């Protein structure tokens, strides 16, 4: 009996081995995605639209076949992702947008109903209570206060937003900077019964002058906060110098050389106490995707200051800290160039206190706080760069743009040479230069050098397209925005 049992067990085991070696010749075939559903959908740019206004989108499709596919446009509410709202089942979207003011994700789906498969793309959709959204925001000083002029992508101007549209108390002081926070801004409001409600995931603007600040709801231009509500504890000495944000919407505010921050999407939208330490932070920060770098004007060192974790000294490949004070250098201007995912590149315009010569430090920072030793090149004494206070570096070329009175100049770092790019009219003084990129109303991409000049009559904004990769510009454009007051900052809001 036992022998019979062993024979049966052996047979079963052999059967498994034999089956394992069987070559499966099933009648199925693998098909590529494009073979199965050849249609292609181009990405759709993010969209801002005023509620109860027309929303039209013509998607770009390849290998489209209207007889074969069905189409669907729908939204998901970012604050309530389970709420799906179908907008249209047409090929193109053309509706009157009756969505409530808020932030959504818009989906476009192309489906083959016979195979029950589909492809889709999505994009952020912001529905606002105002038609002041995508476009250009010019900060200007006028009559002793700061205000904002808005220019839509189509060129429609709305002057003096704070005074005439927001109608908030006048913003004291001269313009410093402005940022748009597309989402992840929180704001706490006190209800009549004394309880607190926190509004999460809001869109907002921070508008900063040297003496004052206001935060607006970007969707309806109501006031979220004035200066005294911006901090857990308002600094005793207000001398606001700059504001920036990183890719996590963490916002960094520099007041009197001290760095204050608030996390995007967390807390109640208030700035923390100054980051601990004796640093005197330079007003411009270098914001990479993962790290934020600051230059300390006391120690002449560069620190990693991401997320407000504290000041972490950057060090070189040997583990030694790289501080410009080692060579008696004093930083005159700290210019961001390239911000990539893991690294940033910057120029520093420095003066050597020992020999009164000027230098450019070309350096990059990568891997959080790793900063290779910079390369230095001397700036000829005759160059106007050493005395200029308005300058900027483009993302691509190894040049520095700067201004001397009414002239827009370019300093070629590799050749230590200057070039006049544009001579404005006499009396037109350059106050702002920046390389800005974005998408025009017609969908074309721009990569411009944006320059603001001021005269006694008002300001002018020029957009000079960059030509080639050497930093040259097409300087023939005339001013495309003008207004009253003295402007010194412009922000472009794509969405």
């Amino acid at each position: 009996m036992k022998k019979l049992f062993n024979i049966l067990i052996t047979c079963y085991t052999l059967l498994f081995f034999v089956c394992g070696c069987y070559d499966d010749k099933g009648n199925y075939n693998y098909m590529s995605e494009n073979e199965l559903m050849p249609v292609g959908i181009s990405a759709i740019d993010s969209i801002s639209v005023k509620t109860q206004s027309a929303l039209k989108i013509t998607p770009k499709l390849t290998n489209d076949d209207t007889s074969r596919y069905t189409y669907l446009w729908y939204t998901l509410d970012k604050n309530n992702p389970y709420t799906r709202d179908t907008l249209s089942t047409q090929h193109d979207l053309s509706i009157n947008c009756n969505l409530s003011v808020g932030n959504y994700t818009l989906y476009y789906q192309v489906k083959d109903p016979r195979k029950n498969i589909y492809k889709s793309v999505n994009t952020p959709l912001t529905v606002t209570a105002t038609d002041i959204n995508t476009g250009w925001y010019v900060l200007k000083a006028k009559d002793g206060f700061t205000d904002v002029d808005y220019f839509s992508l189509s060129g429609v101007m709305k002057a003096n937003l704070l005074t005439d549209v927001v109608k908030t108390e006048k913003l004291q002081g001269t313009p410093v900077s402005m940022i748009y926070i597309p989402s992840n801004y929180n704001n706490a409001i006190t209800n009549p019964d004394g309880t607190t409600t926190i509004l999460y995931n809001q869109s907002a603007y921070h508008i900063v002058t040297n003496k004052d600040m206001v935060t607006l709801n970007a969707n309806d231009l109501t006031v979220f906060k004035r200066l005294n509500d911006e901090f857990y504890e308002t600094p005793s000495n207000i001398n606001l110098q700059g504001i920036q944000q990183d890719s996590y919407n963490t916002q960094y505010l520099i007041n009197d050389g001290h760095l204050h921050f608030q996390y995007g999407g967390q807390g109640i939208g208030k700035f923390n106490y100054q980051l601990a330490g004796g640093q005197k932070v330079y007003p411009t920060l270098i914001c990479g995707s993962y790290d934020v770098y600051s230059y300390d004007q006391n120690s002449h060192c560069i620190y990693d200051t991401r997320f407000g974790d504290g000041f972490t000294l950057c060090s070189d490949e040997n583990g030694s800290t790289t501080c410009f004070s080692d060579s008696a250098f004093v930083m005159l201007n700290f210019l961001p160039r390239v911000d990539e995912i893991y690294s940033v590149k910057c120029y520093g315009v420095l003066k050597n206190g020992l020999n009164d010569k000027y230098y450019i430090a070309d350096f990059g920072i990568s891997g959080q706080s790793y900063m290779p030793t910079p390369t230095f090149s001397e700036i000829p004494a005759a160059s106007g760069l050493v005395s200029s206070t308005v300058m900027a570096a483009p993302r691509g070329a190894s040049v520095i743009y700067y201004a001397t009175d009414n002239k827009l100049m370019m300093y070629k770092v590799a050749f230590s040479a200057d070039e006049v790019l544009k001579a404005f009219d006499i009396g037109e003084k350059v106050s702002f230069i920046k390389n800005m990129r974005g998408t025009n109303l017609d969908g074309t991409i721009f990569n411009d050098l944006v320059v603001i000049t001021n005269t006694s009559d008002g300001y002018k904004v020029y957009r000079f397209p960059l030509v080639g990769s050497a930093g040259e510009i097409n300087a023939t454009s005339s001013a495309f925005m003008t207004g009253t007051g003295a402007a010194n900052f412009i922000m472009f809001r794509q969405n």
Partner: protein
Amino acid sequence: MMMKKNLYLLFWGLIILTSCSQDDPLTYKNDPAIYFASKDVNYSFFYAESTSLKADVFVTVHAMGNPSPSDRSFSLIQSNVSDADAAVSGIHFLPLTSQDMQKRMVMPAGQNELKVPITLLKDPSLDLKIVKLTLKVANNDNFKVGISECDSTNITFSSQAIKPTNWKDWYYAFGASWGSVKMKFIIDNTGITNFDKIPSDALYYLLFLNTKLQQKLFEYNNAHPGAPLAEADGTLINFDNPYINPS
């Protein structure tokens, strides 16, 4: 057999009848007595907002029995006189035999509960130690000792900081370490004197406090080169950033 059955019925009938007899209601018949009806007290002059050299803390005395139409004095004594950490009468607290205290130890007519103020004195010795006053109720002509488990209560007091019982709730603001110098530094720089309860939804407020205290400590240590802020035993004060980024 029948006889036996009848006896059973008679027996159970008697049981039922006796169980239905009316009993007199229970009434309190003992002599009047008192006991403490409050918890032990911890007090530190360290957290006091006033600079007064004395402070009143309260113990509640409850009288058993019916309220009296007239005032009735009662007696409290110190029962831990011989202990090493005992508070000293007249130095650390107003003597229980003093005229002021005797006036306070009177149950008013018509009442059976009284909050008795015990006056603590801020003697300099309290800067260096924590003392304890154990109060015990005692028999007198009006009251006997009531519930024996509640016949005494402790008052522990000092001029030193006393670690809040919910210290861990403040972790993101103050870190884990605790000491009296650190506590004073926190109070001086944040203005917080009541640590009983943290604000609701307060993580980012606690982080703000932490950042502020780190900066204030940095400023203090810079202003005192070679003498950084430390506890009496030399332990350096820190507010090491305990923060773990929640994002």
